[in-house]
């Protein structure tokens, strides 16, 4: 119980503390940020250990006239661990990236607040709590999107808010309907809905899909995500490739396994449609990515594509598919964050933000580009990287779930990922010209950015070579739902 409180509160406490610290004390602020991030990690690891040991952690109460409950289960624990681990890397990276930039105090303050809120999403035990944190996640990350305070950033921020708040409104309707039809909102104790009026249930599933689909960037609800790339790169890396978008995906996994249940979902027409929405998003996302010249936007569209991998695995309604989804969640999060970190390193050191100007970058930034190349392989889903295993189980799951065309989609998508990024790597290493000003990979600031990047790449490789390390966590999720 204490672990749960520690995990959830450390980010919020740290964030508020940072907000009242004098803006000029940057060293002290960094220490506070680091301290509370580590606190959150320790809390969530302890939560994970207890949940895996089979203990029931539950914090519940009547708040605001409704019952809220926090009750982590194996799936929530996986999301919580991914988020909190990557938060540490991002915080360290930010120390380098943000050094000397304006508005640092609100940046760190909201980064920590968003940490608490993300863990809240992961550990929520009923739909009301999930809704609360889902909504709060939008509001706490909004200031990070408009970090630059430029007109472009403010416009993107407005788009971000409107898409996400509208999504949350639809979600609220779905939750109210679930309360009226299902009679309860808790995840514990099996799927909430047991059956009933088919047309209504189809609509309900549709509403849930729209509500969570906004954050999961399901096409055509994805437009806020490329716009949000005006945010600083660590924010894009952590929030808009992992935490915020995973909140949407996580919500959809909850809908599939905790609200409807696999049995009921298989009977619904919309349920049969969902895999194809996911498949369409996978292909369309990566095809649009091919046409983007700006690196961050290309990565954003690729995020859209990859989020649907996870979704697709979950709605094969087969244990292997779910295992693939969870593995993909872990492996992809690690490598995509590293990928964004590389892009940030390149932009900060050479000023290059576009694919067309990447020529020669590999010569000046060999370590960064090497990491970039490895993460590229991860995006394709090649061995020896962690994402391979996710994809492997996704393929197995879609065939075993009787939806072999999905497997074809996955293979084609892997190929398109290669087309999308391998030329960039090749171009960077061909010495066409030296970008000016000539940078060097040195100094404390760059080291602070490079170290977490390389470490993440190593973790990604480790997961590929020793998948047994993460398998128990995946197994726990599959056992929990099947």
């Amino acid at each position, binding site marked *: 119980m204490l672990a749960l409180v520690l995990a959830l509160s450390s980010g919020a406490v740290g964030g508020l503390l940072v907000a009242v610290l004098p803006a000029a004390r940057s060293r002290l602020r960094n220490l506070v940020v680091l301290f509370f991030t580590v606190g959150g990690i320790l809390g969530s690891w302890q939560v994970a250990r207890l949940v895996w040991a089979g203990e029931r952690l539950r914090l519940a109460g009547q708040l605001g006239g*409704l019952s809220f409950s926090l009750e982590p289960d194996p799936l929530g624990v996986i999301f919580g661990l991914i988020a909190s681990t990557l938060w540490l890397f991002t915080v360290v990276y930010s120390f380098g990236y943000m050094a000397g930039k304006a508005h640092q105090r609100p940046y760190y303050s909201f980064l920590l607040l968003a940490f608490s809120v993300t863990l809240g999403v992961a550990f929520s035990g009923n739909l009301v709590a999930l*809704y609360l944190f889902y*909504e709060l996640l939008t509001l706490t990350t909004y200031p990070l999107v408009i970090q630059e305070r430029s007109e472009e950033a403010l416009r993107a921020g407005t788009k971000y808010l409107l898409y996400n*708040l509208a999504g949350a409104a639809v979600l609220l309707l779905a939750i*109210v309907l679930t309360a009226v039809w299902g009679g309860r909102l808790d995840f514990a104790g099996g799927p909430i809905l047991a059956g009933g009026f088919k047309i209504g249930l189809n609509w309900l599933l549709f509403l849930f899909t729209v509500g969570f689909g906004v954050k999961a960037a399901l096409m055509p609800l994805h437009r806020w995500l490329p716009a949000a790339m005006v945010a600083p790169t660590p924010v894009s890396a952590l929030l808009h490739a992992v935490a915020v978008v995973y909140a949407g995906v996580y919500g959809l996994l909850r809908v599939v396994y905790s609200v409807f249940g696999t049995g009921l979902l298989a009977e619904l027409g919309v349920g049969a449609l969902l895999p194809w929405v996911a498949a369409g998003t996978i292909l369309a996302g990566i095809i649009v990515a091919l046409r983007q010249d700006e690196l961050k936007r290309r990565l954003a569209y690729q995020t859209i594509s990859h989020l649907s991998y996870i979704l697709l695995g979950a709605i094969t309604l087969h244990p292997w598919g779910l295992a693939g989804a969870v593995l993909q969640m872990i492996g992809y999060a690690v490598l995509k964050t590293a990928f964004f970190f590389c892009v940030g390193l390149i932009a900060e050191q050479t000023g290059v933000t576009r694919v067309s100007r990447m020529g020669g970058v590999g010569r000046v930034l060999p370590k960064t580009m090497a990491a970039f190349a490895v993460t590229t392989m991860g995006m394709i889903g090649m061995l020896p990287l962690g994402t391979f295993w996710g994809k492997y189980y996704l393929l197995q799951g879609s065939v075993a779930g009787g939806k072999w065309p999905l497997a074809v989609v996955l293979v084609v998508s892997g190929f398109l990922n290669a087309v999308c990024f391998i030329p960039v790597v090749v171009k960077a290493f061909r010495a066409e010209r030296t970008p000016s000003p000539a940078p060097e990979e040195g100094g404390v600031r760059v080291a602070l950015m490079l170290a977490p990047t390389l470490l993440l790449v190593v973790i990604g490789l480790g997961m590929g070579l020793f998948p047994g390390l993460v398998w128990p966590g995946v197994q726990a999720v599959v056992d929990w739902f099947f």
Partner: protein
Amino acid sequence: MTALLRANLPVLVVIAPLFIAFILTPLARRIRLVETLAFLATVLGLGAAGHLATVVFARRGSPFIYQLGGWPPPWGIELVAGNLGVIFALVVTGVSVPVVLFARGNLTAEVGDTGRVTRFYVLYLLLVGALAGMAVTNDLFNIYVLVEVVTLSCCGLVSARRHPRAAEAAFTYLILATLGSAFVLGGIGLIYMLTGHLNMGFAGQELGRVWPDYPHTVLLAVSFVIIGFGVKAAVFPLHVWLPDAHATAPSPASAILSGLAVKGYLLCLLKFLYGVFGGVLLRELAVHRILTLLGVAGIIAGSLLALTQEELKRRLAYSTVAQVGYLVLGGGLLNATGLTGALFYLASHAVIKATLFLAAGAIQAATGKSRIRELAGVGRKMPLTMAAFTIGSCGLIGLPLFFGFIGKWYLLVGSLEAGMILPVVAILAGSVLCAAYLLPVIRTAYFRPAPAVAWRDPGRPQKLALLLLATAVVVLGVRPGPFLELARKAAAELMAFV
């Protein structure tokens, strides 16, 4: 003494502000004393309302019936303090305290010399007393008298600022509100003609018997009542007077007009529709459908209009039009859940809108700016004011754990129980639109670069008032339990007629 007070409790809630209002005028030279007395009057009212609440609660549902002058109905005027009366009396007196606190030492800039300030307080107390009267009265003609008192004092409050625009707004308001009064009076006259009673209980019973014989007259009476109160409560599309009136009034007046006065008329409307006409008749004439449609239209149109406003106070005023839509909609659902939601939302909107208007007033007074895009940097220069505004906005948007969310939740559930999808869409769209018109204010205040000027938070009483209201928004949001229970019981009282 206590026994005497206790026996006369329902009338005390009304009398305390009304009586003190009249002794203020000769004290105009001693403005401090006037302010203190006005403050004490509202505190006294709140105390009486709170005590009344405990008494009614102890009676376990049977209302506290008080006969004015000892004359029993059908001859005398009857006051009935049930849960419905208690919830509204609590809201009126509860909001009136921070608002009067905010006005303390702060009005001369907006209103003028001490004589005018005193007049402001007189009107303010008359308004509060009459609104409290609406909560407890059970007599048709008494309602009409209170309606006129509220209308005229509102009109005076709107014109309190020395500004041509204020005079114009007050004049428009006067004309339309008088028209509304005429309709209300017409409606009451028709009911009296049909039933021979002015006591709401007797009139309702009698009407239930005779209405099949006079269907057209009843229809006319219902339409008169709806139009009359509709104009006064700014039910879309009869809202045209509201934005000017509420935007040009002095800030404490805007807060009380938007927060409370409009609600008083809505309460009367509900009392008429449920208590006098009754559920059978409402269903027969499809009045509830009309109310629902009016509510939906109000939410959507009010929010869209709010979105186009550039001035902060006008934006808030249009937002009131939208929020009135929620209450009308809830009243039209004809089920206990929807009605609970509407009554709870009435209370939360009163508190929230008062917070927003007072914060907006403080900002306008400190910066001299009224347009939203000129407010860059207010968040850093006036932290407390802007924090109150932000909390209020979160409540109005309907974030969980803020006052207001659970009201919307009940309205949603109520609409689904009634099997209607249109209100559901409107409620949700209204929330999103509300975010769309309030969040830009917050964004500009906090995230746009601040100009180099010395704006400061208002004085101590103003800060305290904002703090009280903002705390209420959060505390009642996290722990709405007792209040929700009260709303539920009050809704049950109304539903007893259906």
